[in-house]
């Protein structure tokens, strides 16, 4: 798998890594594969333990993208880390709510709330 184009903006704030999605649409299979690999690399290669995924830019995502997020959550938990999601717009939040993934993930309104007490 080539590294491909960078799909996440990474910022380190104290102990917490904030990964911001760059894409507006997380739909295409290849795209999702690349994003997944870059997410997993944060845990498996970089050993980061406290991760916030910021969805500010994201307007659409498909069930395949949800699958990657679930796998990411498992990898972070397996590494005894913590994952939070933030800045999810209402349309997208509905997708999480319909699939009950709002119960699986720790979702905060914005980045400030996600960083608080992490």
């Amino acid at each position, binding site marked *: 798998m080539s590294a491909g184009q960078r799909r996440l903006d990474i910022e380190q704030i104290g102990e917490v890594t904030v990964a911001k999605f760059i894409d507006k649409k997380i739909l*295409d299979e290849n795209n999702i594969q690349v994003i997944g690999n870059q997410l997993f690399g944060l845990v498996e290669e970089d050993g980061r333990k406290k991760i916030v995924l910021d969805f500010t830019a994201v307007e*659409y995502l498909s*069930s395949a993208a949800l699958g990657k997020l*679930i796998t990411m959550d498992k990898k972070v938990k397996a590494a005894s880390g913590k994952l939070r999601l933030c800045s999810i717009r209402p*349309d997208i939040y509905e997708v999480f709510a319909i699939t*009950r993934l709002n119960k699986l993930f720790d979702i905060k309104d914005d980045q400030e709330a996600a960083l608080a007490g992490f």
Partner: protein
Amino acid sequence: MAEPVQFEVTIPSDTIRGHEVQEKILELLEEYSFPEKDLFGIKLALEEAIVNAIKHGNGMDPSKSVRISCHLTEEKLSVTIEDEGDGFAPEDVPDPTEDDNIDKPSGRGLMLMRAFMNLIQYNERGNRLTMEKRRSPD
């Protein structure tokens, strides 16, 4: 009053071609002034349905194709998507919201289609999906 539109396309098992059809349908919906909230759900449902047909139905086999037909009036969108696969039984797809399945990474596409569209109906073989969305009140 806008005239009803109907078209049918056959595409190879290629998600890029699938996205082109998706975009065409969404452009038509915008021309027909369907509300934003409908567009989001329809786009998501089309994405899930076309990817399912290409990936699970045709197994990404480039020699197989997907037939998509669309009928749009001011009140309702109907889309039929047929692949060349063996089909599946929708009732056998496990409920992804069950506690035992909630952390499994697959199985949510069908659920999202059902949530965002008014009708999701498979033929008996399970290789042809008809879905409908009525325009929401403004």
